[in-house]
């Protein structure tokens, strides 16, 4: 629990989910629906995309495609977390909840906290940290839903700005070798270029190319 309280990201998450609750209210979803989306989807950008596309009258299929493109990032995140959690006795079903709880915040915090946690306790640690974060966000969703009518435009903009700032600096803090900085910097820089291709999967195009170049840097430095 102390880890939940001590992370700046928890505050940011709280504010982000206030925004999601308010967005759900303004798009005429029920409170139960908003809470279910926080619990079952558990990915801020995916929820914002889901609510705003459905709210703007898109079809279910269009919304599903928009959500799934934004969720591709979860695949490499889960893949990179799994080996940190495994012991020779671990069965795959023990890791299902860990996979569900993995989102940007937890992913970032794994690299910060897990080196200090004994390997056999890591699954329990992540279950605790992740469920704590989910509870905080459920409360925030409900408060945001209730407050929706009284939020000003400027406050709403400030909440939406929290996500990119917090994602950027928390990831930058975990950068250790040159390849990490290259992946982050190039990933930012290549996205505007990728949007010019109008492929509909811009993030995937810029992410895979920037990530591969960063891996090239890593490989080249290893050879030296």
């Amino acid at each position, binding site marked *: 629990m102390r880890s939940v309280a001590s992370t700046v990201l928890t505050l940011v998450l709280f504010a982000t989910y206030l925004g999601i609750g308010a967005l759900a209210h303004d798009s005429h979803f029920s409170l139960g629906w908003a809470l279910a989306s926080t619990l079952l989807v558990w990915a801020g950008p995916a929820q914002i995309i889901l609510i705003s596309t459905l709210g703007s009258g898109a079809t279910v299929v269009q919304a599903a495609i928009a959500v799934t493109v934004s969720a591709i990032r979860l695949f490499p995140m*889960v893949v990179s977390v799994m080996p940190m959690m495994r012991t020779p006795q671990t069965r795959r079903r023990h890791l299902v909840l860990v996979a569900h709880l993995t989102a940007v915040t937890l992913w970032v915090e794994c690299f910060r906290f897990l080196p200090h946690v004994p390997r056999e306790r890591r699954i329990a640690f992540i279950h605790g940290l992740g469920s704590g974060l989910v509870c905080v966000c459920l409360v925030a969703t409900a408060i945001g839903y209730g407050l929706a009518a009284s939020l000003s435009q400027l406050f709403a903009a400030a909440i939406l700005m929290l*996500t990119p700032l917090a994602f950027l600096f928390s990831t930058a803090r975990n950068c250790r070798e040159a390849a990490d900085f290259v992946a982050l*910097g190039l990933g*930012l820089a290549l996205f505007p270029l990728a949007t010019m291709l109008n492929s509909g999967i811009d993030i995937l195009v*810029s992410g895979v190319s*920037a990530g591969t170049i960063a891996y090239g840097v*890593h490989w080249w430095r290893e050879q030296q």
Partner: protein
Amino acid sequence: MSDFIGDWHALLILLIAGVIPNQIWRMLGLWFGGSLDEGSELLVWVRAVATAILAGVIAQILVQPAGALASIPDWLRYAAVAAGFAAFVATGRSTLAGVASGELLMLAGKWWLG
């Protein structure tokens, strides 16, 4: 209770358009990551791609803002990120300093613009 849940049709849409398209990637990650070695080169690449995709999500929110964030001029959003980054570096990588400075600059700029 029915007010709280709303209609069941909306929950079905949540499942089809929200939960499944999202969870499929986590479960693929679980299936794939379960058999990967911690020190493997493939994992270094996967981690780099994850970081770069996240950077793309950040860039998308800044370049193509949604909702209320679109009411902030482009230059002010980029200036806020630059100010946050300067504070982040100056404080020896403090996430809090970076986020707070970026937000403050954006709010101050918007207030100044009126």
